[in-house]
């Protein structure tokens, strides 16, 4: 059987590790095998993921009408798809339609994620053809102070969770007179429910390199470090290869793009310490030390890596800089609400039917994210709670799902948007167990520098156990309150300081789980669909 069009079809199969975790490599191999047999003329391109993760492996075929998607595709589906005419975009039970027109994607406002899933992540040509380097070229036309002014005017805030304005941080570094300055990208994305950084690094690595290079020009830095957690081996490999390609093309090194800018970039791999996602711990780790939190001041912008002025930003922050420079501060600033400007990359995970990346302007509600985008739970049971902003974020009850997603509105409600991770739980969740886990996790991952965090978390586990067991309940509840206050007030960083947030929110919104008033549902194991790999 021949491909009726007699031309070579281009077929995209993601190389993103989430897609690979459910069989994308096997699907790509099956397609290549069919091509190798000469039955069909096709080229397989390994793209990033579009972020519709429940459809992975999502196979796309280039047709005159656009890229037609099929998914989720199992390796054993491949022969049938090809026989049905997939290479011409023909109908099939797995056919999804033109991918760009799928409502889940079309309703989003993809700014940072515009290229992720569209291009071949390691193709320099593809990158430039899809608008890559426009931001760097624009920045190199400007004086450093003007680049900083542009980033400040865009309203871009750090996407790592704290939300500090990026331009203000950069100005501090620019104003330091040192000869040697650094740009550090914090790619230690250790929070459960977050995967946007990983998808950027695996799906559009040049964008991050470009953003770091713009930052280097803006502040006068000559060296950059990308600190990636060891749990992300695919991101490490992709970034290393991309840096090699960038050097070959003169996008890194001496005289970047023919300008006077010299900047080189190194990948450093973490070693399994959650705390190294905290910026000062990350700097210690980069210096070859235990990742222990530093007291601030001095702030890293003034005394950072090896005591030098250092820009420390998250992956999404730096990856968003190129588009700010390419399209202009105003175009970015027009998106969003109040003091939360631009877009946020929400990540839907946990017990959710349609999990993945939703990039939209700030101001969307949690309900829209979970119900409209997410389609409810994966288990089909009612949603009971969502934890927003990682393991240090609050557990919110369904009654608070209409809160708009913006930094200030969430803070006012005793929660945090953080990095936009949303982890959904169904009604089988035991909230006392989740609160206990928050303390247990803090005890496990505390760097040990502050006593309230190091010892308080251990005591927190014990106190919660006593409350649940009904031992001196009132006294222990008061003790837990006191402990939470102490941890909040007495810890140097967010690890100890924010662990009380999930604990208190669980206790406030779901007290029955602690007090034995709620008859725990018989918990049925979620029958997760077994993958195909």
């Amino acid at each position, binding site marked *: 059987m021949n491909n009726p069009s007699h031309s070579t079809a281009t077929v995209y199969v993601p190389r993103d*590790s*989430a897609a690979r*975790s*459910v069989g994308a490599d*096997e699907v790509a191999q099956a397609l290549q095998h069919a091509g190798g047999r000469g039955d069909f003329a096709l080229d397989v391109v390994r793209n990033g993921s579009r972020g519709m*993760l429940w459809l992975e492996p999502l196979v796309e075929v280039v047709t005159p009408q656009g890229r037609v998607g099929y998914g989720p595709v199992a390796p054993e589906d491949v022969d049938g798809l090809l026989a049905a005419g997939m290479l011409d975009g023909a109908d099939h039970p797995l056919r999804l339609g033109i991918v760009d027109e799928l409502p889940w994607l079309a309703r989003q406002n993809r700014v940072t994620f515009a290229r992720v899933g569209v291009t071949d992540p390691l193709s320099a040509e593809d990158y430039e053809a899809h608008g890559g380097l426009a931001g760097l070229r624009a920045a190199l036309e400007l004086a450093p102070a003007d680049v900083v002014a542009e980033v400040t005017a865009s309203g871009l805030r750090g996407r790592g969770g704290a939300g500090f304005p990026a331009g203000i941080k950069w100005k501090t570094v620019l104003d330091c007179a040192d000869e040697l300055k650094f740009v550090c990208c914090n790619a230690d994305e*250790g*929070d*459960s*429910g*977050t*995967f946007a950084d*990983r998808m950027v690094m695996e799906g559009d690595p040049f964008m991050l390199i470009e953003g770091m290079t713009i930052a280097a020009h803006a502040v006068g830095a000559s060296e950059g470090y990308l600190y990636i957690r060891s*749990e*992300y*081996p*695919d991101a490490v490999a992709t970034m290393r290869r991309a840096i090699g390609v960038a050097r070959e093309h003169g996008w890194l090194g001496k005289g970047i793009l023919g300008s006077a800018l010299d900047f080189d970039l*190194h990948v*450093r*791999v*973490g*070693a*399994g*310490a*959650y705390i190294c996602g905290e910026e000062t711990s990350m700097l210690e*780790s*980069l*210096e*070859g*030390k*235990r*990742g222990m939190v530093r007291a601030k001041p001095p702030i890293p912008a003034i005394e950072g890596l*090896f005591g030098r002025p250092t820009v420390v930003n998250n992956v999404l922050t730096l990856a968003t800089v190129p588009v700010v420079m390419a399209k202009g501060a105003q175009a970015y600033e027009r998106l969003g609400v109040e003091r939360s400007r631009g877009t946020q990359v929400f*990540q*839907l*995970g*946990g*017990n*959710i039917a349609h999990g*993945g990346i939703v990039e939209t302007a700030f101001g969307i509600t949690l309900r829209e994210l979970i119900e409209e985008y997410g389609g409810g739970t*994966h*288990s089909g049971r009612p949603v009971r709670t969502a*934890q927003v902003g990682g393991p240090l974020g609050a557990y919110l009850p369904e009654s608070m799902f209409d809160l708009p997603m913006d930094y200030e509105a969430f803070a006012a409600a005793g929660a945090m948007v953080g990095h936009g*991770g949303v*982890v*959904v*739980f169904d009604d089988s*969740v035991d909230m006392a167990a*989740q609160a206990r*886990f928050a303390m247990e*996790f803090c005890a496990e*991952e505390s*760097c040990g520098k502050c006593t309230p965090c190091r010892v308080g978390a251990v005591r927190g586990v014990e106190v919660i156990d006593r409350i649940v067991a009904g031992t001196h309940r009132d006294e222990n509840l008061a003790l837990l309150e006191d402990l939470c206050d102490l941890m909040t007030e007495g810890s140097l960083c967010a690890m100890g300081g924010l662990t009380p947030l999930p604990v208190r929110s669980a206790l406030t919104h779901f007290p029955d789980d602690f007090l034995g008033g709620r008859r725990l549902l018989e918990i049925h*194991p*979620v*029958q*997760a669909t*077994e*993958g195909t*790999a």
Partner: protein
Amino acid sequence: MTTSRSDVTVESVVRRVVARHRGERGALLPVLHAVQAELGHVPQEAVPVLAEELNLSRADVHGVVTFYHDFRREPAGRTTVRICRAEACQALGADQLVSYARESGLPLGETAADGSVTVEQVFCLGNCALGPSVEANGRLYGRVGPARLGSILNGTVSS
């Protein structure tokens, strides 16, 4: 490759690794990763050599080796299986995977008697929309139920 036995001592491996990373700023972590990649763990004998080569105190090196979860003081099994226990995977039944492994005679942190597999916990593999997730020797698996974990533990999952 060398065949002489003296070339594969811990000391020689450490010195060779350090030489490769000479010139990198604050090189201890990349050096430790490289030592572990070659030897499967960071043996106690490596600590004084590292201290001497990098001009650090033994206490400093020891402190770093023991601070990070990744660095092992003892060799692991031939396959390391890591079960994600972070919130997103908990929401989909990660604890059932831990129970399943335990009931198969592989509690967290333990290595099978025949040295085939070590089971560990990990907090977040970045696959939060396709959990529960498990990683085996650097490869990520999504939507893992007990049956699939069994296949992974038995090494019967096709690569």
